């Protein structure tokens, strides 16, 4: 490559960059203006279905509107979202080269202080998770929050080298992961078989059913979070796809 070519190339790159900045900047600005104008033009007053959702709250089995929406009014959406979590785990398994954790070696024991701290924190985290789960009936809380806290406990066990999910068998892990999705599935099939609308909860027993489904969902969410941390590419086991290849592919 001659010097002349190099100069040309540099100029070309600069010109392209300029075009990009101008276009992207103008576009982003215009989009932002559009959104602001749209929001300013929104109708005044109480938003959407909040009032109606509150009005029907007595028939939902829970006292907190958000939980009612998530697990009664729109439980179908929540079911699909739990499905998203299951899919995330499957995607991780796909990257690792198998739907099993047997080649995850136990983490080396770290320093004793961490172990001590873990021992102290795990019961507290578990308790918090249970509280959050139960709280969902009346106040902000519920399966997702509880699941993440419980999952954090699992991850912590793993990071400190204490026996954790990796001691649980392959089949059991899969059951724990799927149990949330299955809970909704069973509810859907059972309600159909009982002659109700799909996923319709009879008002009298709605509270219990919701708590049960939420508990199972919490278990799945917690397991999912813990497995995500355990099975990450950073963990000891070699991932199915060599990072070297990925780098090479990314450059092309």
């Amino acid at each position: 490559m001659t010097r002349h070519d190099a100069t040309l190339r540099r100029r070309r790159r600069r010109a392209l960059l300029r075009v990009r900045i101008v276009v992207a900047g103008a576009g982003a600005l215009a989009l932002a203006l559009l959104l602001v104008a749209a929001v300013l033009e929104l109708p005044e007053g109480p938003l959407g279905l909040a009032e109606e959702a509150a009005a029907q709250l007595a028939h939902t089995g829970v006292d907190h509107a958000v939980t009612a929406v998530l697990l009664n009014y729109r439980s179908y959406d929540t079911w699909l979202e739990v499905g998203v979590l299951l899919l995330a785990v499957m995607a991780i398994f796909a990257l690792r080269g198998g739907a099993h954790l047997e080649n995850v070696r136990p983490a080396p024991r770290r320093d004793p202080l961490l172990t001590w701290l873990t021992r102290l924190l795990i019961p507290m985290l578990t308790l918090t998770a249970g509280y959050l789960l139960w709280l969902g009936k009346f106040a902000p809380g519920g399966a997702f929050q509880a699941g993440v806290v419980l999952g954090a406990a699992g991850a912590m066990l793993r990071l400190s080298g204490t026996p954790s999910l990796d001691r649980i068998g392959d089949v059991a892990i899969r059951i724990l992961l799927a149990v949330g999705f299955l809970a909704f599935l069973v509810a859907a099939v059972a309600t159909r078989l009982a002659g109700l609308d799909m996923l319709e909860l009879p008002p009298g027993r709605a509270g219990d059913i919701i708590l049960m489904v939420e508990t199972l969902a919490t278990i799945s969410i917690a397991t999912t979070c813990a497995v995500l941390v355990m099975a990450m590419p950073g963990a000891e086991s070699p991932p199915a796809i060599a990072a070297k290849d990925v780098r090479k592919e990314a450059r092309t």
Partner: protein
Amino acid sequence: MIEPMAWCILAPFIGASLAFLLPGRVWRRPIAIGAIGATLASVWMLTSQVWNSGAQRMDLSGWPAPLGIGLAADGFSVFMIVMTGVVGSLIGAYALWHYSDLSDATEPAERRLFWPLWLILWGSLNAIYLSSDIFNIYVALEVITLAAVALITLSGKAEALVAAMRYLLAAFLGSLSYLMGVALLYATHGALDLVIIADQERAGLPEVGAFALMATGLALKTALFPMHFWLPPAHSKAAAPVSAILSALVVKASFYVLLRLWFGVFDGPAMYAVGILLGTLGSAAIIWGAFQALRQMSLKLLIAHSTVAQIGYLFLIFPLTARRPSGELAAAGWITEACTGVSYHALSHALAKAAMFLGAGVVLHVYGSDLLTNMRGMSRRLPITTFALAIAGVSLMGLPPSGGFAAKWLIVTAALGAGQWWWVLVILIGGLLTAGYIFLMLRWAFISEDAPIQLRPANMPIQLAALALALLSVLVGFRLEEPFQLLVIGDPFPIFDLP
């Protein structure tokens, strides 16, 4: 209690759960066959129910909309569900043999995870086609995206991972854009149900923003030019059955949603300029995709770029159903042709493209590579697969008599009826270019290779699955009467009510 709409979603989900919990070799085949059979049975019941007694609707969780979520099935949903069922089960049949008899070539993860992922994907596709709730559609789109990404990474190759990541990010951009639109719509209408929103007054800036965001997001997910950048790598690097699922079925789901919004929510026909713009982008896709396909040297990339081109035809429905600024319908009297033509194109493309990707899978398995130059002597070694590729090509080109021809003919008729003859020009040039890359592909198959090369044998079932899809793509062109009748059930393209 038999409720076909619910079972179209429940059956694949049950199958997916079982396949996830019991991934062993023994269980794989019974679970897969059972799930396919149960889903097909549900699809059949739904079809006959809608055919005999008109559009259906059911409420979930016992709460009627707007509080709860509704499922609804009209002719268009059933059309898409049947398409998914037919193409999906044939791809499934291919996968059964692909992942058992060809197991030496596949990753362990691939064998264990294909079925749960594909069945969840299938269920969510049906969920989209049945959903009457714009937020629920968002969730189902997310499920589809994630399942598709996981399926791509299954092949265990670095290039597949990179392609899958690009796909994931692009799809997220599209989903979030759609979600922003959902938020704006909810804020304006206070409801999420398609029917309720459709009945309300429209206009106003929030709705303009919602349309722009949702349409662009969905177009990105459908890989409309110039936002198709993620599609060729994602569709070509995956394993054969996965490529077939992605190209034949997954891209159609977001297009379906866009069409629903266009007719149901936004009074799209009133937006003439937008219709023309979308049609123009579609035309650009037709030309650009075909040109790129002509330049590919690898079979799967060629087929993937062909998908970019074929998606373009779908977007011609927007200008053809729009009303001129003066108020009259551009294609008054030809709306049925336009809508049926585009739906039919979706169907025949799904069949033909699935056939081509499965055929490419056979080539890849036998030759160990899908470079066109390596396909020498294929017409003698793999006559059935070559035949399937050629037949599917006939449908893609739109030669009579084939599904592709019927679809393009209907679109052309509608375009001429609308006085928008320029789309006809695009369709015909697109057809010429398609013929070009199909011939280019087949040329190599016919060059004889004298030097004996070491090849793996291909068993008959996987070849027959590709052939069946290819033949179907041609055969659907023979009879248009039932699809015509089906597609107007429940008035899914409610343009006739407008003044």
